[in-house]
């Protein structure tokens, strides 16, 4: 991991799990693989805290354990999965996607599983039913069967998957006897397990229980304990489910492609591309460069009924998509009215390129952006050629090029005419390499999010006294209202916060909202750049 990634991971761990887990996690990231004792020694934390932290990290799928370098007889070694920690930044997006696809029930299911890392189906169903019942009007409650059906739909579309089985240190796993622990360097992929998406049979009937608001905290704990003891009755103990992040990422990628087509062309073209992507969801492997070939006939039949466009019009649209310089769709054959594919990797590369161009434009102006785009297309250009092609006066072109060069967005390539690299006899060409520039920008994004989080923590700390005071007053108001106090008493309590304090609180809230929203939106750029970089690595 790079320095910025380590810093961001530390901040995310601290925000979600506290200082102790942050120390343990950061030490593991920096040192690679460690045994329990080495980890306790290096973090200088008591052993029990280190054990608890490792359990938390493993529960959330961020840490793996396995036989160490000394073989199965040696101590267990632990390793962090770094990208899982960075995924924590994207949790709101996962939850919101589940909501848009499967409603409130789906949203709560994904939220619960994300918060707890892994859960059995029965405990998820019970917790979600209780939460939904709590929000329903008095007298109604959510039936378990509805939650079960939402859960099943999430599993069928592969958004949830079973946690891969792990051979524990002492006992043998269900498949093989005396399996040695797998080496910690090769984690088992969840998809290698044949029953990854198989729903267990559980006998779970009933409805969500409504909590009385006065016993919130205790009822929560009691319900949690009760859920644990009830697990064994449902028949699915030991089968834990986790969120399938890869599936969500494929969905985000498809969304990005569809919205790009819709922006560049029109709504109908984006619907055609959406249909093509939907048809090849199940048949296309995760890292494929393009989808399965689809014939125009199939696409025509699969279009949603609200879009009744004639067959020749569809052909025209497909031709338009193929001819577009963004190359989202490609034609691979003529049978069945024409065989078409969606070029996934090329689409990602184009989206990343658009992101880079947009960044240059917003930071350095449209003429610098023109020079940048020129260099992306023409690869290598001399100073004079840049001025001519970009139609920018020489002095300004120089200035802009040097600014871009100092920011490392543009590189200088020397081509010697003579073997002694004499400067008077060497060509100096400006060039832009898309992949390294994308990596650079990605690191800037990680640094940005780190800065945003730190600023938010700073703002909260600066106004801690005021925030605590306002929380106390809200608690007093709530308890007064519950016991039925008069309006005069309520206004008296409300006036304990003065008007300038109220204004300060309001501006603090506004700042924190802006910082939070910024984190979410920088994460969208992070996702695009990460997908592009991963697609280039998978191709090798």
């Amino acid at each position, binding site marked *: 991991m790079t320095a910025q990634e380590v810093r961001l991971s530390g901040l995310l761990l601290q925000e979600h799990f*506290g200082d102790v887990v942050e120390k343990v996690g950061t030490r593991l990231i920096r040192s690679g693989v460690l045994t329990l004792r080495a980890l*306790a020694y290096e973090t*200088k934390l008591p052993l029990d*805290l280190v054990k608890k932290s490792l359990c938390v990290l493993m529960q959330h799928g961020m840490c793996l354990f396995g036989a160490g370098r000394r073989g199965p007889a040696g101590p267990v070694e632990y390793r962090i999965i770094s990208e899982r920690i960075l995924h924590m930044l994207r949790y709101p997006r996962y939850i*919101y996607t589940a909501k848009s696809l499967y409603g409130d029930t789906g949203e709560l299911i994904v939220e619960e599983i994300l918060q707890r890392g892994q859960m059995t189906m029965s405990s998820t169903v019970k917790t979600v039913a209780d939460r939904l019942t709590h929000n329903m009007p008095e007298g109604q409650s959510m039936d378990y069967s509805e939650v079960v059906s939402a859960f099943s739909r999430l599993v069928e579309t592969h958004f949830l998957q079973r946690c891969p089985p792990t051979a524990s240190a002492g006992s043998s796993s269900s498949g093989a006897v005396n399996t040695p622990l797998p080496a910690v360097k090769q984690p088992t992929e969840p998809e290698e397990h044949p029953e990854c998406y198989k729903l267990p049979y559980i006998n779970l009937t009933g409805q969500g229980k409504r909590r009385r608001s006065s016993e919130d905290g205790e009822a929560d704990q009691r319900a949690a304990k009760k859920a644990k003891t009830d697990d064994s009755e449902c028949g699915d103990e030991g089968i834990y489910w986790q969120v399938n992040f890869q599936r969500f990422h494929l969905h985000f990628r498809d969304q990005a492609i569809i919205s790009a087509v819709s922006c560049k062309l029109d709504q109908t073209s984006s619907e055609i591309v959406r249909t093509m992507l939907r048809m090849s969801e199940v048949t296309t492997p995760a890292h494929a460069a393009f989808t399965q070939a689809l014939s125009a006939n199939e696409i025509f039949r699969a279009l949603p009924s609200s879009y009744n466009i004639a067959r020749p019009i569809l052909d025209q649209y497909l031709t338009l998509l193929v001819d577009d310089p963004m190359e989202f769709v490609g034609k691979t054959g003529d049978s069945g009215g024409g065989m078409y594919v969606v070029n996934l990797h090329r689409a990602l590369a184009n989206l990343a390129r658009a992101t880079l161009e947009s960044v240059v434009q917003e930071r350095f102006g449209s003429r610098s952006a023109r020079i940048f785009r020129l260099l992306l297309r023409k690869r290598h250009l001399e100073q004079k050629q840049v001025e001519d092609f970009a139609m920018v006066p020489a002095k300004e072109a120089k200035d802009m090029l040097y600014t871009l060069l100092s920011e490392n967005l543009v590189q200088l390539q020397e081509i010697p005419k003579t073997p002694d690299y004499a400067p008077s006899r060497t060509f100096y060409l400006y060039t832009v390499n898309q992949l390294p520039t994308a990596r650079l920008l990605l690191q800037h994004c990680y640094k940005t999010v780190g800065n945003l989080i730190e600023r938010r923590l700073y703002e909260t700390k600066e106004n801690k006294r005021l925030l605590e005071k306002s929380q106390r007053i809200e608690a007093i108001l709530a308890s007064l209202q519950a016991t039925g106090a008069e309006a005069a008493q309520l206004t008296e309590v409300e006036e304990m916060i003065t008007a300038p304090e109220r204004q300060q609180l309001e501006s603090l809230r506004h700042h924190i909202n802006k910082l939070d929203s910024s984190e979410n939106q920088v994460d969208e750029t992070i996702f695009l750049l990460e997908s592009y970089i991963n697609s280039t690595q998978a191709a090798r």
Partner: protein
Amino acid sequence: MAGKGRGIAAFTFNIEALGLTRGSMPETQRGPTPLFPQIEYKPVPLKAGEDEDYMRALKQEMRGRMKDLPFNIKPHAGKGDWNRLPKELKPQKKIIRKKKDTTKNAKISSKDKEEVLNKLDELEKKGDVKSDEEDEAKGGKKEDEEEGEEEEIEGEYDEELEEENDYIANYFEDGDDYGGGSDDNMDEATY
């Protein structure tokens, strides 16, 4: 270094190839770039829609809720002044012995020093050496930086039961391997 120019700047390459002229050299750096540099172009405003507001609310709710879940591990909090409670209730930490770190010792404030001296006096009876760095690790803002967990009291009792013999505890120094990591296979020979 200056070449034949004798005071006249002469570059080793042909300046015109890069489009430079003598008079148009960019300014040299006069120190580090400012922390908050001036930006020429104002950044694009944030997207502000229903989706974004909802996701922001989700994020803030999750942040609040994660603090209450059991996954949020708190460091050991102080549990009162050990001078006033019976000494046997004070749990022993399973301390991993570490090298003396003189730089860390210098950072201890005077208040910490008094506490440390008090603890050292008490601990001498038990035969363990208190490590200052444990205080640092816990964040020295707490009044009584004392470790305390119920599991450790049980561990303490186990240790005491084992030592039902005539050997005086502080004649033997506990090695690095004592107490810690008993779950792992002991692959290092004990001497």
